[in-house]
């Protein structure tokens, strides 16, 4: 008896086997393809492989609109937030507010969540490194290692691309998360400030190899071709996002302590190669954040207190080094961040002093005046069409409430939707979406509140297991299998 049914069944069986095999093959291939897609599609910006959604722009054309004809050397003495806030309200009133803030702060110390004994100990340990910071050395660094001349070998010679790659590798090795470089010549010369917070910065013709330094209470810079090495030092994100806590202050202060190690190491490295490498102890000589925005590290945001990195969001700081080693001119990037800031406004919404531009305010070339002192403009470098924070109201609130720093309480940086971890895959998905199109930006911005991001628990922080320094140092690593 012929068994047609069984013949059909065998055919079906073979079809099914083939289908299952194809399915297994696709499934097996899918995982590594998905895993490697980012690598396959990664773009190379800022000299490193970045996620595919971070796109290079043309040189000197960041996402925020700038007018190079308006760029002047910035006199930081005049626009230091505490200086202009004191000018706005008078020294007596400023002093009264400081006392008021001190009383409030002291009343919370050792009793409020995040201000307890161990929190304060963490803050003190992080910041002080004051002795560690003092060991950093002024201007040219320790200047203890032998120069090529002293070693009897020629000075290091490389083309700008080779030099940039080498500088980046060394600086990351010493402790930077990311590095961006560019020249300080021609129209870029005006990025060198006219003063830091207290001292004038002056160009002079100096003997070859002389980096200048602090002389007669002025910073003397050699009037030669210079390049800027900007480097990023992330905050411990979870620690940083604990509101007005001592843990937040510890996270913010930790990068200065790390700077005291990274900076002299890099300066000695450059000295050993035969090049100058100097940085102001007075900070800032230039704008590390400006360097990051111009050369691929970040984009400007609404808060303007900090720029926003595609990888680290707003939880980071920038420092800068000046050198006579010829480096590349790296282009800015577009990750959709500045465009996102137009429709987000979360930082402004959470600002306790209402010092940030709300959603109904458009970017402007004009630096507006402070509401605390109508005759005094809010701080800002008026060469970009941006959002201008009211640093006076920010500073006045700060000194009378949390006594944080001249640059405020940092709540704006804490609640930025770009501060995301590596646990949930949605973050990369959303970053890619935001970088590609802006039509979902409002929805994504609203979801930050729905999802409750940016509000860490200072008590719970102590019971968690975070990586070294509290930082994911693998984010920028594209080789060695670290970034999984």
């Amino acid at each position: 008896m012929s068994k047609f049914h069984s013949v059909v069944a065998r055919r079906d069986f073979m079809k099914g086997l083939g289908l299952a095999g194809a399915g297994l093959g696709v499934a097996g291939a899918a995982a590594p393809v998905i895993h490697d897609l980012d690598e396959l599609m990664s773009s190379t910006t800022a000299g490193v492989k970045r996620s595919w959604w971070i796109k290079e722009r043309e040189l000197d054309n960041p996402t925020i609109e700038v007018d190079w004809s308006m760029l002047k050397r910035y006199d930081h003495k005049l626009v230091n937030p505490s200086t202009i806030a004191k000018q706005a309200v008078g020294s007596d009133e400023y002093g009264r507010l400081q006392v008021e803030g001190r009383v409030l702060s002291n009343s919370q110390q050792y009793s409020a969540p995040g201000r307890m004994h161990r929190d304060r100990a963490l803050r003190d340990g992080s910041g002080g490194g004051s002795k560690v910071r003092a060991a950093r050395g002024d201007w040219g660094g320790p200047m203890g290692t032998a120069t090529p001349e002293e070693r009897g070998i020629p000075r290091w010679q490389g083309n700008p691309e080779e030099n940039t790659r080498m500088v980046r590798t060394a600086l990351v090795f010493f402790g930077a998360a990311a590095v961006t470089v560019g020249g300080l010549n021609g129209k870029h010369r005006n990025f060198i400030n006219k003063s830091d917070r207290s001292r004038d910065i002056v160009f002079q013709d100096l003997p070859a190899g002389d980096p200048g330094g602090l002389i007669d209470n002025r910073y003397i810079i050699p009037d030669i071709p210079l390049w800027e090495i900007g480097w990023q030092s992330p905050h411990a994100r979870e620690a940083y996002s604990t509101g007005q806590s001592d843990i937040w202050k510890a996270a913010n202060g930790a990068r200065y302590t790390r700077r005291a190690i990274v900076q002299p190491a890099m300066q000695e490295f450059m000295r050993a190669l035969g090049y100058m490498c100097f940085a102001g102890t007075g900070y800032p000589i230039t704008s590390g954040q400006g360097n990051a925005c111009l050369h691929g590290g970040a984009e400007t945001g609404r808060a303007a207190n900090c720029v926003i990195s595609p990888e680290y969001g707003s939880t980071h700081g920038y420092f800068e080094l000046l050198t006579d080693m010829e480096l590349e001119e790296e282009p800015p990037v577009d990750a959709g961040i500045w465009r996102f800031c137009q429709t987000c406004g979360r930082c402004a919404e959470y600002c306790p002093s209402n010092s940030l531009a709300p959603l109904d305010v458009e970017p402007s070339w004009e630096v507006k005046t402070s509401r605390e002192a109508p005759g005094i403009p809010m701080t800002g470098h008026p060469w970009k069409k941006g959002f201008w924070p009211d640093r006076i109201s920010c500073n006045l609130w700060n000194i009378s409430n949390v006594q944080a720093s001249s640059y405020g309480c940092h709540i704006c940086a804490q609640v930025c939707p770009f501060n995301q971890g590596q646990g949930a895959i949605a973050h990369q998905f959303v970053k890619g979406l935001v970088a590609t199109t802006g039509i979902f930006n409002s929805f994504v911005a609203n979801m930050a509140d729905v999802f409750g991001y940016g509000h860490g628990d200072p008590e719970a922080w102590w019971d968690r297991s975070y990586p070294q320094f509290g930082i994911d140092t693998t984010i920028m690593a594209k080789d060695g299998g670290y970034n999984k």
Partner: protein
Amino acid sequence: MDFIIALILGGIIGASVLWMRNRGIVVRWYEWLIGIVGLFLLWFTIANYFGSMTEFEPSAATAFLLVTGLPSIILLAVAGSLAWRRNHSTV
């Protein structure tokens, strides 16, 4: 882990296709599309729920259940319902 999840999902899909063919169940292309989108959202929800919990963001984890998990259930139910109704309708 991703490899294992992909294997399991591939196996489930393959087995489902075989089962439906054996039963003579016909699935239209749009039902496939709705089902695949629903399945993707379900995987997205589960992955981000546990990812958010590892980030100690319980609010976000719960939000994923609602924002993407609920639509995934709805889409899977719609796809299944459409296929079921057509294959069990009496003329």
